[in-house]
Structure formats: C-alpha cells, structure tokens
C-alpha cells in the first residue's frame, strides 16, 4: 500500500503540466472569451501531440497504456490550470471507443482530430442503445462532431449534427461553452452498456480530479498572496483571519487529494466499494473546491473580485463541475443508500 503517486507516475504528468503552463495559461480564457470555441486548435493539437487524449488507451491502439490513476493526475493538472476544452468527454469517449473496439475512432481521438463534447439529459429525456430523445444540455459541444451521453443504462455517442437546432446559451464560465438542444430525436452512433465498463464512475473520478486541482490552485494562490500582499506594514498572512483560512484550504485540498487517489485506485483495481469511493471523491472534491475558490476571492480582497485576477475563473469552473455528472444531492442520496465502505 502506497497511496501517493510514484516517481514514474509523477513523470507522466510533468510534461503535461509544463505544456499547460506554457500553452494554456489561464489568461487565454479571457483572451478567447468571444470565440466560438474556448480552446484554440493549436493548443488542442499540442495536447494530442503530448499524448494526453490517449494516456489510458492501450498501447496497441496508439495510446500510452496507463490507467485511470495517471489520468486522474493529468486531470488534476488540467483543473489547476482551469484548462478550457472538452477534455473530460473526449477522454471518456476514447475509453468508450476502446471498449467497443472502434480502432478508427480511438485513433482519431488520440490524434486530436475528433473532439467529443458532453451532453446531459434533462429530466424526462432518455437514451438507449438506439436513440436519444428529449432535451439536452451541451457542454463544449458546438464545435465537436460528436457528443457523449452518460445515461443510467449506458454511454452513447451521438453525432452533433443529428441534434437538430442547437441554441447557444451565455455561460457563467468564460472557459466553457454551453448550448441546449430541445426536442432531440437522434440515432446513437455508438453504445456501451453501463455494466460493461463503468464509464460514469471514471467520469466522476476525473471530474473529482479537476476539482482537486482547483482546490489546490486556490490554496496556492491564496498562500502566495498572503505572503506578499502587505497591509498595516506586514504581509496579510500574519493575521489569523487570513492564515487560518489558508490552513482550512490546505485541509480541504489534502482531503480531496487523498480521496481522489483512493477512488482512482479503487476503480482501477475493481474494489467492490468503487462506486461509493468515486461518488465520495466527487462530493468531497466539489466541497473542497467550492470552499477554496470562495476563500481565494476573499483572501485577495478587491483584487480577487476583478476580471483580471484568476480567482473568478476558479469559482465559475467549480460551478460547472459541481453540476456535471450529478450534483451533490444526487451523490449523497446514493452514498447513504449504498452498503458501507469496505
């Protein structure tokens, strides 16, 4: 038992972290605010070149052959950088394509040629192996040829062109593009039953990873500011109002990180309580990120409220992720109903 990432695992994401810092700085979100897509093609291709979309695709299909643990580490970095773009749905779609043996689709995703957006079913809408029907929320899907749907019975890929009239929606998050499709009645182009591979749980773990990255980045940003910003002739971090807030942020980040690792390993190793661990990871990480993002604004004071500061980017991305793949109340209802953790 060693729950911390190994040196090898850390190496896997080091290049990605450097690339993100260089090519996808958070400021890019502000710059691209008015563009149809939140992420530019060059950066997306760069990610493909680094192998990010195939990190956990088997080597024989052109991937790097790692598992959900390494992918979780990657997504933590993506979270830290509030990286724009449909990483989550694209990476999950690659897993779907692997599972159903569609090597062409795998290759296209891994190469960064096929991007996959996310679609969420509104209440009363349905998806099965044949068709999706009803109203959908689309996340970073407008420019993507495919959308991924994670329904209770399984995961589906649907061609975006089949969704009919797609209405873009002003988004709270300048790094995420939203749209809706109403009255959809579209064919499913690929289907993976939930029982075959727990794609949804994998999605929860990766969403948790994004949230953990945000919780950590907020802790770091506040700590840095508390060390350097002076008021009353001393760094504001000497004040317990600030110091203890940063300490609480450290607790939340550590907690989210630990549970993320536990859930990733649980999923990879097929522990019987993997579902409980994955849902718990999402809930704990979302709480950590929510609290830390809000604290980070407050620690930065007036600066934290400006558009120019990154603090609001964290707040907004947390809001998007909290509502992705089920919110707090949904997961808590399952957590209390599931058998006790092992």
């Amino acid at each position, binding site marked *: 038992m060693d729950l911390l990432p190994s040196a090898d695992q850390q190496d896997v994401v080091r290049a990605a972290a450097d690339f993100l810092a260089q090519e996808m700085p958070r400021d890019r979100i502000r710059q691209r605010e008015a563009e149809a897509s939140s992420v530019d093609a060059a950066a997306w291709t760069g990610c493909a070149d680094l192998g990010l979309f195939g990190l956990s695709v088997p080597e024989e299909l052109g991937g790097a052959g790692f598992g959900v643990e390494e992918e979780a580490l990657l997504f933590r970095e993506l979270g830290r950088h509030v990286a724009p773009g449909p990483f989550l749905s694209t990476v999950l779609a690659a897993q779907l394509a692997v599972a159903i043996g569609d090597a062409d689709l795998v290759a296209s995703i891994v190469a960064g040629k096929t991007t996959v957006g996310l679609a969420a079913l509104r209440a009363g809408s349905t998806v099965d192996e044949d068709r999706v029907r009803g109203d959908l929320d689309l996340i970073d899907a407008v420019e993507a040829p495919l959308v991924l749907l994670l329904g209770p019975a399984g995961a589906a890929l649907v061609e975006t062109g089949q969704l009919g009239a797609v209405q873009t929606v002003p988004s709270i998050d300048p790094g*995420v593009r939203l749209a809706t499709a109403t009255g959809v009645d579209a064919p499913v182009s690929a289907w993976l039953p939930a029982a075959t591979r727990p794609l949804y749980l994998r999605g929860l773990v990766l969403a948790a990873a994004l949230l953990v990255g945000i919780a950590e980045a907020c802790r770091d940003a506040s700590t840095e500011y508390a060390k350097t910003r002076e008021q009353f002739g001393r760094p504001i971090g000497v004040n317990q109002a600030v110091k203890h807030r940063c300490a609480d942020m450290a607790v939340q980040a550590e907690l989210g990180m630990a549970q993320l690792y536990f859930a990733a390993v649980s999923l990879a190793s097929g522990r019987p309580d993997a579902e409980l661990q994955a849902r718990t990871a999402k809930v704990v990480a979302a709480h950590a990120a929510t609290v830390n993002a809000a604290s980070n604004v407050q620690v930065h004071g007036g600066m934290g409220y400006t*558009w120019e500061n990154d603090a609001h980017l964290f707040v907004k991305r947390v809001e998007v992720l909290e509502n992705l793949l089920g919110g707090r*109340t949904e997961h808590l209802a399952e957590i209390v109903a599931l058998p006790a953790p092992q």
Partner: protein
Amino acid sequence: MDLDFSADQRDFRDQVRTWLHENKPRDERPRAAAGIREYDLAWQRTQFEGGWAGISWPTEYGGRGLSLIDQLIWFEEYGRAGLPSVDANFVGLNHAGPTLMTRARDEQKAQHLRPILAGEVVWCQGFSEPGAGSDLASLSARAEIDGDELVVSGQKIWTSFAHVADWQELLVRTSRTGSKHQGITWVICDMHSPGIDVRPIRTMDGEAEFCEVFYDEVRIPLSSVVGDVDQGWSVAMSTLSFERGTAFTAGQVRLASTVEQLIELARERTGPDGRRPAIADDELARRLATARAEVAALRAMTYVGISRSARTGTPGPEGSIVKLYYSEMVKQVARLAMDILGPDGLRYVSRWIPGGWSGNYLYSYSQTIGGGTSEVQRNIIGDRILGLPR
C-alpha cells in the same frame, strides 16, 4: 419597546407609498454608466421636485428635516416598491452629503448640498488605492501645496461612476511626517479637472461598475479642503460611519423581497430529485425558512439600530454588526438561489435583468469585500464594541 408608528408617521407612509406609486420611473433602466447617470439623476430630480429628497436632511439644504424613523419609512416603502437602488446618487446622498453637513464650511455646504438632493450632480469616492485597501490610512496619493492649490498625483481604485461623476470625495496625503493617520486631507475634487484619467475595471460578474482613477498633477483649490489640511482622517472616519448607518435599510428590504422571490421560485421549479417541487426538499425548504427568519431578524436589528441612533444622535459602531451580517447573508441567499437552480444556474443572466440569479451570485462576492471586508468589520466589533485588546 414598541413598533407603533404615530398617526403622523402612518400618514407619512401612506403619502410616500402613493407618491412612489404615481411617480416611479416607468421606463427601463439603461445598463451603460452614462445612461444610468441620466436615469438616476432624473429620478432624483423627480423626488426633489416632489419634495421627497433628503427625508432626514435639514430643510436649509432642501431636505425634509424629518426624523430617522421617517427616513426608515421612506426606505421601507422605496424598497417594497421595487425601485432601483440609489447607485449613481449613493456617494452624494450617503457619504459626501452627511460628511459635508457635519464637517464642511458654510460656503462648501451652500455650494454642494442642494445640488446633490436636486439630482444635478453625481459624486464619487476616492478613498481606496491598490496598496491601501483594508489599511486605508496607508494611502499614498500625494498632494503638494502650491500657492492656494493642492496639486494631486497618484491613483485611486474601486471608484463607482467615476467616469460620469462631477465631484469626488478624495483622500490625499499632504504630509509624510508623523503617524500614517496624520497628514491625510479630505478634499472635494472636481472630476472635470485636467489631469484626471478614468479607466473602468471589469469585475467577476463581467460588468464594469468600478473604475481606477489616475491623477497627474491635478490642481484643486485649497478652499475645497473639508476640515483642515492634514486632518482628513477623522473626516474620513465619519464618512465611513455614515456608510454603516441606515444606508442598509433599503438593501435589507430588497433582500427580504429576494428571499420571497426565491420561495416562489422553489414552489414553481422541480427540485434536485427531478420529481417534487424544490420546496418539498427538506433541506432547501429549511434553508429558505432560515433565510426568511434571518431576514426578519435583520430587519429587527435595523429597527434596533435606528432606535439606538435616535436616542444617541449618532451612528455607533453597531453599524458594523449590521454590515457584517447583511453582507454575509446576501452571499448565502445568492448561493441558495444557485442550489435551487442546479444546472440552470450555469446560464449567465445579468443581475440587472429579472431572474438574473447567476449574475447576482457572482456579484454577491463583492459584498463581503467592499465597504470594509468582513474581517475588518470583525476587528471593529471586537475592538470597539467588545473592547478587546489590539
């Protein structure tokens, strides 16, 4: 201990309600600052001409010369009528006006007070600087005395409506000897003076309500100093105590109405389980009930504050209790709205538009920062109300 309003006061309330109903602005409020200026000034002018401006201001400045309780009645009816917050007139009515009344010379009062009430001018504030936020006294915008003028260079920040303002209450450093609280001067700055450069600051909610103001050798007559040169700190402190006075009354009434709207929303919308209305969710229902209870108690606290001020004649440090509680509560209520909306909260809707819950949520982050952070308020409560050691 009573909640009775006198026959005169009840009468006054009826008149206020009737007048507001008949005279409130009918056209939509513009969103650009220039438009807001004209809109807010016009509405202030209407109030002035109707004899309703400055309820508790002395009649010699064009006010009604009535009591704090009448002013409470005005704020309550104003809030209940869903009228726009004072915004462009805020600094004039709640900061500069009261400060000038208590601290300015007669010719300054004569020049400035009536135009504020009459809706002729917009005032803005020039207190905070990038390096002087909570630690306001460390401000460094400097003013040299040159003959009968101050020559100001430096920068201010968080100035609402700076780009459309006529006048500014400006704090500058006129001396660097002694403690940092000494050597500060409170001066009236003409915003049309050469050398002033205003740049909007875009904020978290995407709006640009605030500005940075840059001063490059801006010349201000010494006759515009309020109080004495180097003695502006105590003037500034009284300005801030007015801010923490009854100015939250209208906001508190608006918050109460926001809570009622939320309860309505929770009755109409489906809750997080996708089946029942949101109000059927025990947790949401209790949070809504708690919000209703807290907003009722906030109003009681406002009444206690007014009762206290009416007895003592001045706003006490208890204003910090109201400010702290009010601003934390605004944040909680905004958060509750997002939790009721679920994924629908991801759609950005400006807080200026009905149903603008997501814009309001983002805006709510400013509440525990502006006007003195919650941390500063807790210091004030600890030091000045409880007398804890520093």
